[in-house]
């Protein structure tokens, strides 16, 4: 594996559409649930241990070479909100375009043929990591970090939060990101032996509910 390839894939400037999404932060800001750095930290911690863990386990499983169609169905089953399923597929399609241009691979081409309108983003992320010569833990790190990084940068824009405070939130979550990645990789190895139904199904009901409210909102800065 190449550590530099991991930096390319994990870079927030990797052109795969993430900038237009807030990870539920915009809806939470509007609902008055995030008003500053302290609440942002709690929000991110909640995301990390729920959707972050599920996404990281899916990404790690795809990086281990599990069947993408089975993982995509597992992702659907773990995403109750239709708006979030739609966002995950759009982001998956955008990531697939960037990954195919960056690390051409037969597996990514096959995924594009099988999912012309996009597979769930963590599944694409795992296959992109594979195409980049990266492993399951690398894919899980990208996914787990993304699950909090996107919300933090969106909150900087939404609340005019001090960017140094937002970066501090992410830095202090780092040990927990490590733990979530360990759990995600262990779950992926179990799923490789037992099937995708054993993957974690941690869920944050309020994220799902607010995502639906957000999708119906006539004016918003972020797509999700």
């Amino acid at each position, binding site marked *: 594996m190449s550590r530099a390839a991991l930096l390319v894939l994990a870079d927030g*400037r990797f*052109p*795969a559409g993430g*900038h237009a999404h807030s990870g539920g932060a915009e809806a939470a800001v509007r609902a008055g649930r995030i008003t500053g750095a302290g609440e942002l930290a709690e929000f991110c911690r909640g995301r990390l241990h729920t959707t972050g863990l599920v996404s990281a386990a899916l990404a790690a499983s795809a990086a281990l070479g599990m069947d993408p169609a089975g993982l995509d169905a597992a992702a659907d089953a773990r995403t109750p909100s239709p708006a979030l399923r739609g966002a995950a597929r759009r982001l998956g399609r955008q990531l*697939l*375009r960037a990954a195919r241009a960056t690390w051409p691979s037969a597996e990514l*081409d096959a995924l594009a043929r099988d999912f012309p309108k996009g597979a769930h983003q963590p599944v694409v992320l795992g296959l992109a990591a594979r195409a980049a010569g990266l492993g399951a833990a690398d894919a899980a790190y990208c996914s787990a970090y993304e699950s909090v990084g996107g919300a933090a940068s*969106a909150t900087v*824009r939404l609340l005019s939060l001090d960017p140094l405070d937002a970066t501090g939130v992410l830095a202090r979550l780092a040990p927990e990101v490590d733990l979530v990645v360990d759990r995600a990789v262990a779950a992926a190895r179990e799923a490789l032996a037992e099937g995708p139904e054993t993957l974690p199904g941690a869920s944050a009901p309020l994220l799902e509910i607010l995502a639906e409210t957000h999708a119906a909102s006539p004016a918003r800065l972020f797509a999700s």
Partner: protein
Amino acid sequence: MHLDHTHSGPVALSADARRPDGTRRALRIGLGGPVGSGKTATVAALCRALREELSLAVVTNDIYTREDAEFLLREAVLPPERISAVETGACPHTAIRDDISANLEAVEDLEDTAGPLDLILVESGGDNLTATFSKGLVDAQIFVIDVAGGDDIPRKGGPGVTTADLLVVNKTDLAPYVGSDLPRMAADAKAQRGELPVVLQSLREETGVRDVADWVRARLADWTAPA
């Protein structure tokens, strides 16, 4: 010529001039410029001027609503299936320059669902004087400013004013009311842009969008000419 090449997947990448099935894709023209300069009005006027002779579609990049797309729908300048809105996450310039993936999905989906198309107009959300389109997204770009935004804008320059393939100075009918010096704006634009063209227009006057439409026709003639 490589008529018999095989494509490994269904997705065209960025600026490829051909679609995955080998046909030539639509010409893509971007329209950028500051908030309120008349981008959407120019797009609407272009649609009215060109829709009888060309198959065209529009992608809008709104900042926090679907208002631009809804304006075009309300004005019925094109059928609804030919207008697509992209959400840009608080940064319109990112979606047209740094990470064009959502816009590429939108233009490709329009060609799939409403095609074959001759022309796709991609309208940026209102942004600043440095916002330009990626060459991976559009083949040519128009930068729209207006006389009421300050007649010093051409002199100040910036990537939009200086490098756009066409500069449009809009709302010339307002110049007497806002104290803008049109000849000076034209001279400053010429100094910034050298040989690149400038159009001064008022959509409220009879000539309307004529000069810009002619420029678009010329770009399309270049695009479809055999190489």
